[in-house]
């Protein structure tokens, strides 16, 4: 097996991975950086983020307000030292992107423009029309091209971390084009592999978001944190699940039930605000968890609209007018027209909540370090505890910048003065990966089909770990995922050839998703309270006495995982009431 020696290996080349790579290259031009990704960088799912990125820049805003919005939005499960660091770094990172050429929308005087976003008390979301993530990703990718010290390994599927002497020292990966296995020996590894939304059947997430990075760290002994917190975005297209950005509502779009009522006022987000005059942090600009939960209640009451794509509510943007829609929401208009045949200028568009984002992930501290020495993580795959129990829209694009850079700085510190690697030991570990793949590849007595297992997993997650959860449902979910993980050991490939074998990669991705699904269901069953995106019908209240803690799930092979807890860091904001009732009470 070919060995590639490098100083730092980064797994994932989306927003977080690219930001990390650039920060490393800038800090030390002599550093060897390997940027490994299963897709070409510009295919990464950062490209699908639409609305924008939050950072305090305007004179009427303050760091304290961004802090309060984030901590309250996260239902007090955010680590407040992390939020503090984040809010101060955010504007610097967004300005850095501006200096790298990101085409942010502008005010008439040429300064950067900001837009309102859900759960934010001030306008602080920087945006590039409704393609903000796309522009961030391409700006980072293009900027990265000027650094010769960044060596890209595009379309390399990362497999296992190499952990020897108590620290992470590399990773194995398969070159997809040839099917050849490689080992990367690195002084530090940074995982920036994105989320795992594809474990659910209905998701805004691209096909690539299968939690490979999370699962890799989990299998290597690093805990996954707060995995039970899965964000449903309130407004997805009902057939494809494509995202219609929160900016639809930020710009003034309203949500209606089948009676034409703006039903959010019935769920603690009223009173109603005038149409076309969106008010911050109330009604349609409530936080995502609350808005998605309101849909569920409307569904129970029979207030949703029956469409050929299932039960929906309506997002009405007609009053914004064609000019504003074309200027601010061109992608949304195009998506609704192409995939649903609805022109949002003329008609309301049917929508429903859709799995969007994992608040949980590889446990990291504010330095982006995992408990496993030498292993760092950033972006959606990490849980740095910025987002708590519910992420506010437009905080995650900034998170990947702030903690992508932070992971680079921490890795640089870590690699100073390390003892030499024991290459014999690393080679032996890489051989284990080789063996694992060989077993999967050559199994002829398997009885389980990959697409069959995948469907069972998705159905289980939707049925038992959705917007509202119960003890009974979660017990069933945990048992079923356990069973599927065991049956996965008998999965059989149809394709046993070497070149770009997507049958193989989908099987590996399924393994990753099953590991993540285990952490989600086990964490959800153990958390007997309702907080943010984790809602239990049998425990409807938040329970700060017992659960103002992070769930930490540790992999135990095929056995049930070990669950532990970690205290939330509270510095200045004691748990309070989340109030989205607007200014007039």
């Amino acid at each position, binding site marked *: 097996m070919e060995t590639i020696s490098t100083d730092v290996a980064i797994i994932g080349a989306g927003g977080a991975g690219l930001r990390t790579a650039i920060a490393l290259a800038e800090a030390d031009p002599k550093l060897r950086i390997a940027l490994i990704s299963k897709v070409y960088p510009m295919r990464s799912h950062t490209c699908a983020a639409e609305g924008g990125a939050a950072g305090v820049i305007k004179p009427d805003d303050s760091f304290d307000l961004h802090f309060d919005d984030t901590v309250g939005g996260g239902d007090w499960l955010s680590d407040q030292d992390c939020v503090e660091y984040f809010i101060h770094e955010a504007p*610097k990172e967004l300005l850095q992107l*501006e200096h790298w*050429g990101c085409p942010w929308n*502008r005010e008439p005087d040429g300064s950067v423009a900001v837009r309102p976003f859900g759960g934010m008390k001030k306008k602080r979301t920087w945006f590039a029309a409704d393609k903000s993530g796309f522009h961030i990703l*391409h700006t980072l990718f293009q900027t990265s091209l000027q650094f010769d010290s960044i060596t890209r390994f595009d379309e390399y599927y990362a497999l296992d971390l190499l952990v020897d002497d108590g620290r992470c020292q590399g990773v194995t990966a398969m070159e997809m084009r040839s099917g050849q296995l490689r080992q990367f020996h690195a002084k530090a590894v940074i995982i920036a592999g994105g989320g795992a939304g594809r474990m659910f059947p209905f998701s805004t997430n691209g096909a690539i978001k299968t939690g490979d990075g999370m699962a890799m760290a989990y299998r290597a002994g690093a805990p996954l944190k707060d995995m039970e917190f899965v964000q449903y975005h309130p407004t997805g297209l009902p057939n494809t699940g494509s995202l219609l950005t929160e900016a639809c509502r930020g710009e003034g779009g309203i949500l209606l039930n089948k009676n034409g009522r703006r039903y959010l006022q019935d769920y603690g987000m009223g009173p109603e605000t005038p149409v076309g005059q969106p008010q911050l942090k109330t009604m349609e600009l409530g936080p995502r968890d609350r808005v998605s939960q309101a849909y569920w209640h409307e569904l129970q009451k029979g207030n949703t609209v029956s469409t*050929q794509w299932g039960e929906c509510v309506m997002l009405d943007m007609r009053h914004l007018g064609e000019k504003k829609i074309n200027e601010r929401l061109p*992608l949304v208009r195009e*998506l609704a027209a192409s995939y649903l045949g609805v022109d949002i200028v003329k008609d309301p568009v049917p929508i429903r909540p859709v799995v969007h984002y994992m608040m949980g992930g590889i446990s990291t501290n504010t330095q982006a370090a995992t408990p496993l020495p030498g292993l760092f993580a950033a972006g959606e795959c990490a849980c740095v505890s910025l987002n708590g129990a519910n992420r506010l829209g437009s905080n995650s694009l900034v998170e990947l910048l702030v903690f992508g850079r932070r992971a680079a700085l921490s890795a640089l510190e870590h690699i100073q003065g390390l003892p030499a690697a024991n290459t014999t030991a690393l080679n032996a570990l890489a051989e284990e990966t080789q063996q694992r793949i060989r077993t999967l590849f050559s199994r002829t007595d398997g009885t389980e089909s990959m*697409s069959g297992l995948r469907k069972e997993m998705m159905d289980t997650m939707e049925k038992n770990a959705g917007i509202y959860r119960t003890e009974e449902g979660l017990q069933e979910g945990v048992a079923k995922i356990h069973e599927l993980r065991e049956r996965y050991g008998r999965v059989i490939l149809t394709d046993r050839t070497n070149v770009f074998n997507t049958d193989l990669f989908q099987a590996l991705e399924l393994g990753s998703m099953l590991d993540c699904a285990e952490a989600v269901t086990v964490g959800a069953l153990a958390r007997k309270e309702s907080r943010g995106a984790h809602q239990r019908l049998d425990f409807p209240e938040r329970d700060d006495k017992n659960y103002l803690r992070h769930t930490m799930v540790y992999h135990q092979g095929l056995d049930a995982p070990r669950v532990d807890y970690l205290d939330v860091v509270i510095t200045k904001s004691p748990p309070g009431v989340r109030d989205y009732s607007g200014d007039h009470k």
Partner: protein
Amino acid sequence: MKERLVQLEVLRYNPDTDTTAHFQRYEVSCPEEGVVLDALNKIKETIDPTLNYRWSCHMAVCGSCGMMINGEPKLSCHAFLREYDGVIRVEPLAHFPVERDLVTAPDDFIEKLKRVKPYLIPKAPKPISEGEYLQTPAQLKKYHRFTLCINCMLCYAACPEYGLTPKFIGPAAISLAHRYNLDSRDGGRDARQEVIASKEGVWECTFVGACSEVCPVHVDPASALQQVKIASSIDWIKEHLLPGGGK
């Protein structure tokens, strides 16, 4: 959701086992409002797991799923079944080497992208602490269209020049260089001219305009190439015909 039967004829090639490519016929039922990618996914899931292609976002922004559909370069997630009658022929993107089935090797494009220096080379560098470079909406508008390229390479598959002369830098890469040249914050045009105004650059383009026709996000690379040609001609006139090189 209404369904319809879809017949696909897909070009298959596996270098491990095949000496030549061949077509394979599939028939699946798909929602009427679906796209060719939905049909491929259904085939892979229910009929033939050995079929290979790239895809991710299913919303025409990641640029992964470019292929030839009835001879035209298209994103398969944006090729609507309602627009096709009869058997739909699906082949790998033209002008790129085939790795396997519908998966092509984009190495040449990636290399060219890098050569045009597609990043901001600031006109007047300043530290982050001094805030943003001011840029009015009008200045943004000047280059904005050319920022929209998703690198899907459909324009390379459509470009007859690229088919004949693979050295041609090509529509997307030149548009991207032009995007930075037009950016009020940028001062790097001279550094990019060397490549884009070279023989392999814009002068290879015969202005067929196929690139703009197939672009799924309306970047209009043809207009970028035309603008680069005009600007480069003016450079030449200044340098060779005006006293003192026009300076």
